[in-house]
Each structure stands twice: as structure tokens, then as C-alpha cells.
């Protein structure tokens, strides 16, 4: 319970950052978006609770959050309209900026270790990124074509 409260405190802080950010970036009134944000944060908290309750299931809390919100917003679900219009007050891109700000800070103490690595790893990592991305994209392109979706 203490852990849940602690997590929710942090989620509220993230919520505040998003509300301020989306007011500046997308002109969404921060106060009017509070109800939507509360619903988003409650689903987020639920995903943390599920993750905590199922330690043996290797599914990240992020994926649980998507899964719960996916179920609530499927067309034949009675919750769909309400859930989509309420969470619509929270802008998609607005949620991404605080994440990456935290991520940027968090790698601050890894730059030293990276400098120690060989320059070769830079080239190889770029090849890995490109290989992974376009490998998948090419297969997806072929299958989507065969299925007649694109």
C-alpha cells in the first residue's frame, strides 16, 4: 500500500509535467485537462499494481498500461466512448517529452563508460539499428502487400 501511494505520488508529478508541457506545446488548457489526466494516471497505477502482483510474468508495466487501455477502448466495449473522450484531453506527444527528459538525464553518468568503448561500437550499433529496423520493415512491406492491405 505504501508502495502504491509512493508510485502514485510520482505519477502525479509526471501528470503535472505533461499538463504544463501540453499547454505550452498544444494549447490545451491545463486545468480543463485534469479529469482526463486523472483517468490516465489511474490506468497507469493499475498497470503497476498488476505488474507487482505478477512478478513471474515478463511483461513490462508499459505493456500492461497499453493492454488495459486497449481493452477499455475497443469499439464494442461500453466504456469506449467515455474512455476515449476523457483520455483525449491528454495529448499523445505531450506525454513523450517528460519521458525523454528523464531518459536524457539518466544517461548522464554513462557517457564516461561510452567514451571508453571503441569507436567501432558506434559504427556497429548503427548497423544494428538499421538492420533491425529495415529487416522488419521489408518483411512487413511484403506481407502487407500480399494481404492487399497496402
Amino acid at each position, binding site marked *: 500500500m505504501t508502495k502504491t501511494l509512493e508510485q502514485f505520488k510520482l505519477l502525479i508529478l509526471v501528470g503535472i509535467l505533461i499538463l504544463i508541457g501540453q499547454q505550452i506545446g498544444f494549447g490545451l488548457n491545463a486545468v480543463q485537462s485534469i479529469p482526463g489526466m486523472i483517468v490516465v494516471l489511474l490506468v497507469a497505477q493499475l498497470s503497476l499494481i498488476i505488474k507487482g502482483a505478477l512478478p513471474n510474468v515478463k511483461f513490462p508495466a508499459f505493456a500492461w498500461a497499453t493492454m488495459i487501455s486497449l481493452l477499455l477502448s475497443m469499439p464494442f466495449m461500453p466504456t469506449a466512448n467515455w474512455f476515449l473522450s476523457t483520455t483525449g484531453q491528454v495529448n499523445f506527444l505531450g506525454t513523450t517529452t517528460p519521458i*525523454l527528459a528523464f*531518459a*536524457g538525464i539518466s544517461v548522464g553518468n554513462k557517457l564516461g563508460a561510452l567514451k571508453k568503448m571503441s569507436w567501432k561500437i558506434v559504427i556497429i550499433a548503427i548497423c544494428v539499428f538499421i538492420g533491425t529496423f529495415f529487416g522488419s520493415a521489408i518483411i512487413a512491406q511484403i506481407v502487407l502487400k500480399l494481404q492487399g492491405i497496402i
Partner: protein
Amino acid sequence: MANEKSITKALINAFITVLFIVVISEFIGIKKFAVGPGTVTLLPMLYAVIFGMLVTPGILGKVVAPLKKLVDNDVIEFAGSMVMIALLPLGVKYGTLVGPNIMKIIQAGPALLLQELGNIATIFVALPVALLLGMKREAIGATVSICREPTLGVIGEKYGINSPEGTGVLGTYMMGTVFGTIFFGLLGSLSLGTGLHPYALAMASGMGSGSMMTAASSSLAAAVPSGMSETVLAYAATSNMLTGVTGLYVVIFISIPLVNKLYNVLEPKIGKKGGNS
């Protein structure tokens, strides 16, 4: 007690720092540039990750004393644990994109599932390069996959994280952690220049990392005609969830045997003699 106090201080300092970064990044807003055949779409998240790195003690903190006080190692540690929490509202938003499109997603199921196998293409692209550069067993770890946490775990368990293979996997992992979002934030929109369909590129964005998928798919979604962007994000999120489920098994049962086999074939031919990483 002192410990608790320092955590609270780290929390407050991190919050203030991130608030500044978010405000400045959102204020700059979305910028688009035409580059060659494609468009680069710069999103606020991209500025945020760069500003985040800049304010740490290793870079600007070194020269600006008050900044070093604001962003210390406690704040860096705390920020690391906050990434997982901060990702959750985005996870919820992704769900609201997938849910209404669930029929479309199921219809595209075969493509979504099969493209998961495309991730092994990295071995064919990156392993020869690594060998030509003179890497030995490090190449196994560095090129086996895009090396997010599950791969790190598997390679660490199989070879030991201090082994050459472990050094390799850590190298790619670190590169991804530090530069992955920047790289994919640029590649997402630029990749449209290849002529591949936005939906195929969207599926490719799901590589098992929430932040890389977000960087790639958001910049892609911002660059495609607006009628397509929701589907782009929905495919990307679904593909990323699938990688979360299948990725580990692909690495264990396909990628690791394959990279070893290819290493044994290629190393005598193109590996440099006596070279090491």
C-alpha cells in the same frame, strides 16, 4: 533519515530540471526540414533528451557550477527510475490508439507477427561489418539483436557479462540507451524516403524499447498524411508489445545460434588476424 532526505532532494531537483526542459522543448515545438528525398521531423521529445544529457555533470555541469549542484548523481539515479513511471501515461495513450483500431490490427496480424523475424536481419548487416573492423567474439554480443534488456540478460547468463560477448552486448546496449531515441527520432521520418509504406515502417518501429518505438513512430506519424498517423501509431505500439512477448524467444532460439553459425563461417574469411576489439 538522511537517506530519505536525499531522495526527496533528488526528487525535487529532478522535477525542477525536467520541468524546465519540458517547457523549453515544448516552446520550441515541432520543426520539419526537407532533407534529400525525405523530411526530418524534429519533435520536442528529441530536444528533451538532448537537453537532459546536456545538463548532467559530465557535460554542462562541468562548466556551470550551479547546474552541477542541481543535477548531481542522486538526480541522475532518480531520473533513471522515473523513466519507467513516466512511460506509463504514454502506454495508456498507445492503448487508446490500438483499441479503436483493433479490427485493423487483427487483420494485419500476419504482417505484424512475421516482421518480428525481420529483427534478425541485424546479424547479416552488422556481423560482417564488425568482423571487417577486426572484432572477435565481441561481435557475437554486439550484433545478435538490438540488445535491449532481455538480450542483455540472456547473453549475460549464457556467456557472462564480463566475457567478450558480454562486452559486445553492453556496447550496443549502451549505444541504444544513449543515442537510440535520437537516432530513431531522425530515422522515423527520414525512412519514408526509401519508398517503404508508412505502415511497414510503423511495424518496424516496435523493437522492444518503449522509448525507441515512440521516437521512431511519432516522428513517422508526424510526417505522414494525417489520415494515416493514428494507424501508424497503433501498428507501432502493437508491434512493440509483440516484441515484448516474442523477442526473448527469437533471441534464444534463432538469433544466438544463427549469429554463432555465421561467425564460424565468416570469421576465417574476413576476420582480421590477431585483431581484437
